[in-house]
């Protein structure tokens, strides 16, 4: 395997893993629901994105031709993940979950 490709794949995979972890750290660590809601976005975007890029590169290299179908995963995820986040935010506002001290603005009444 070409070392450049290998290097790129490795880097992407690691980036993906790191961002997935960072997102989850955020989820575990952040103080209120609304801030925690921001964590998974990282997993959704760069976390999965990194691994997808790695996969694209890897299989395109392996099969000696462009392999792009992994892009669909990202496409679907980009369509669906915001809906989840939106619905969860609404759920949280409905439940009037506690906000972190110093949060500006008000959530809307549902």
């Amino acid at each position, binding site marked *: 395997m070409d070392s450049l490709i290998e290097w790129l794949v490795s880097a992407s995979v690691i980036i993906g893993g790191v*961002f997935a972890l*960072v*997102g989850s*750290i*955020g989820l575990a*660590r*952040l*103080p*209120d629901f*609304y*801030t925690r*809601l*921001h*964590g998974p*976005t*990282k997993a*959704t*975007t*760069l976390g999965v*994105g990194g691994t997808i890029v790695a996969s694209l590169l890897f299989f395109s290299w392996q099969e000696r031709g462009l392999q*792009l*179908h992994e*892009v*669909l995963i990202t*496409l679907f995820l*980009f*369509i669906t*993940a*915001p*809906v989840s*986040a*939106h619905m969860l*935010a*609404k759920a949280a*506002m409905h439940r009037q979950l506690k*906000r*972190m001290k*110093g*949060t*500006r*603005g*008000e*959530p*809307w009444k*549902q």
Partner: protein
Amino acid sequence: MKLMYRVLPYPSLSLILWFAWMLLSGFTAGHAVLGAILAVLLPLGTRPFWPNVPRIRNLPRLLGFVMVVLYDIVVANVSVAIKVLGPLRSIRPGFVELPLELEDDFAIALLASTISLTPGTVSADVSPDRRTLLVHGLDVDDAAALVAEIKQRYERPLKEIFEC
């Protein structure tokens, strides 16, 4: 032309479907035909389910918009990652109300999605009158600046893409 609209009510969707099919199945002649058939049939079959979807009127603008969003995602990811891993006391989250200029539901939904996709902001709600979008920011220094940035970077292109 009328016939064309009857067969292909949403050409852009058909294009996306065909492209998705090719991505999945591989770029062969057989699949091109099959993909084309599906790209025609599926929108026709599901047409009643999505009335009033606006047409894409400015394709290059769309591509530009996608690039901007992708770039923003990468940048925001890094900055948010630093905030998440850093001391939590310095974070100043907030709910920001974003007055909407977009009038089309689909465009609003796209805007909301885009906001949610970029780390650091989540669109939390749309007002019943579709005039305001509630955004939760992970670290809002200046609400007005955030609103302005969103409007400039996302809302305006969307308006251009769909509404001219």
